[in-house]
């Protein structure tokens, strides 16, 4: 089944996790579950956004903190400027549709990068650029069932099982999602392969209200087959539906 990228207004999103939650709109089984998951998916959708993000990467070879500013407009246009650390400060990444460019301050050059670069680990982290800068994968179908409803560690939660339908274009066998009953905020999301082995886990915390939306601002992605490695994303500053001009995303402006 070929999946087409559809036009939808979208904004900066946090992880593939929440994106795939948007797919739940056609879920069949559990009506209430579907409604909740649907709502979670729409948490980060907006027409435009500007945010300041800090990414803390820990892997077996090094540890780094990267701060950046991210602009997004519609579904197609994204601009990232790296603020720190000094080696990468000034680097800018522009993505318009399926084309992307890097501006490298050290050599003062802009290079065009192959589209596949946005689909693999970004800057050594456990997210892809696409994860970081949301693209919506709509019209994918998952079947949602409630696996657990009760209290965990004193907190009342729901736990949902999301199973991709046979034609859904994802590599996962299933995704488990835990949601707080009180405010319907996601707490963690676990991805499993088809053999039922958990491959990675995304946890959410530090919830803040922005423009009357409650959103998690701390996300941690851990690959479960590489203990000790993780990437932490902190949303220092998020702003939705702010006016951004198209000129921000012009290649000529990249070299500022």
């Amino acid at each position, binding site marked *: *089944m*070929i*999946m*087409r*990228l559809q*036009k939808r207004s979208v904004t900066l999103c946090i992880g593939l996790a929440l994106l795939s939650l948007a797919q739940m709109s056609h879920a069949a089984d559990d009506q209430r579950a579907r409604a909740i998951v649907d709502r979670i998916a729409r948490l980060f959708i907006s027409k435009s956004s500007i945010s300041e993000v800090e990414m803390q990467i820990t892997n077996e070879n090094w540890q780094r903190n990267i701060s950046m500013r991210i602009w997004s407009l519609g*579904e*197609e246009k994204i601009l990232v400027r790296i603020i720190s650390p000094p080696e990468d400060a000034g680097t800018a990444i522009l993505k*318009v*549709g*399926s*084309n992307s460019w890097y501006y490298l301050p050290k050599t003062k050059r802009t290079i065009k990068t192959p*589209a*596949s670069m946005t*689909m*693999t680990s970004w800057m050594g982290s456990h997210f892809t650029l696409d994860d970081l800068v949301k693209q919506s994968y709509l019209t994918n179908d998952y079947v949602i069932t409630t696996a657990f409803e009760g209290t965990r560690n004193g907190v009342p939660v729901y736990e949902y099982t999301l199973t991709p339908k046979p*034609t*859904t*274009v*994802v*590599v*996962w*066998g299933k995704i488990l999602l835990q949601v707080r009953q009180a405010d319907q905020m996601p707490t963690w999301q676990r*991805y*499993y*392969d*088809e053999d039922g082995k958990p*491959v990675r886990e995304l946890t959410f915390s530090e919830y803040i209200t922005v423009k009357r939306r409650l959103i998690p601002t701390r996300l941690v992605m851990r690959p479960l*087959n590489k203990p000790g490695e993780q990437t932490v994303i902190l949303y220092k500053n998020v702003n939705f539906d702010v006016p951004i001009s198209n000129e921000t995303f012009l290649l000529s402006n990249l070299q500022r």
Partner: protein
Amino acid sequence: MSGVLLLVKIGWRNLWRNPRGTLLTALALGLGLALLLVSLGLLDGLHEKMVSDGVRFGTGHVVIQAKGYQDTGSQDLLLPAQVVSTTAEFLHTEPMKRLVRGVSPRLLASGLLSSAANAAGVGIIGIMPKEERAVSLIPSRIVEGKNLTDDEQSGVVIGAELARKLEVKVGSKVVLMTQAVQQPDREATDPGEGGMQSTLLRVSGIFRTGVQAVDAHVVHLLLPVAQTLLGVPGRVTQIAVLLEREGDSLMVARDLRKQLAGVAVEVLPWRESMPRLVQIFRLDQAFNYVMNGVVLAMVGLGILNTILMRVLERRYEFGLCKALGLRPLQLAVMIIGESLALTTISLALGLALGSIVHYYIATFGLDLHWLFKGGAPSAFVFDPIIYSRLSLSRIVSSVSIVFLTTTVISFYPAFKAARTELPDALKVF
């Protein structure tokens, strides 16, 4: 005149006075010829196989591509839609049909293959399973699962190295992502269109060729699926043609070029499309020549030995003939007549024996598995089964050479014997 005829008749009967000796000699000579034929057949078959296997890992003996593809390898350069059908038609008619072993249209692109555990850049080849099997060696190298079939829309066949890296097995889900092809005639209506496309696939089979670059990189899917993924229905990147004999490459390429004149294509014989193979085969060809020479020399020596031996043994007998009145020239003619008769018998024997063995090896092949330590040879060499190939010209030249050699060699002792002085010839020991 009748004198000569009589001498020849006597010569003939001489042969049969010592049936065992004659037959032994004829057998010796005949075996020499048979061995020559078989060796040449094997050497030619070996060379043919090396070329064939080499080209089967690439683009076949002849390849048809969009003009400029050989230089740039750009995945946007596709064959105009009509070419596939025109080519297929042309190659299925006489006389082409007999020369062609397989015709495989393919769509090539690069993309990203992801599994739950990992992702890797891959070379996508969209194929038609039955056609591809006739041309490429990959379908015969499946180690797990099975090859693609026409009804498996979501099947993908990957290499063992790739399977290991992605931590997948037969039946696993994978997602293939690629950039749709930029069509020069289509306008980019919006940046989203013609962008990245993905599709869900399941691993149908895993192959191992032994070549790292192939096992870690190449993925096969059904041609229609690839065409839809890349947004180019009906188009292909190349048509690979495999022939029965490497020697026909240039001719077939030329004929195809004529057939497709006016279309923006390049029709390349393998020496142009895969120049690195040429180096290897130049060496192999040189080797072939030298080995032919060596075998010829060896057989020639055998003939020399046999004939000389035979003639020398009969000095007594020749001396007797002369003592009984035969003139030297008549003796010479008689001896030559004998030789010719003997040669003919030998050649017939040799030809028969050689043909039988050649035919057997040509049909069933000679399995050389045991030559490789560890059993399984890597892709560079091949399935070690050689099929003997003998062209008519080879047979004719071999027979002629043996015939000439034998005849010429018999001249010397014939004349020598004719001139032997009587007393010497009649010495018993």
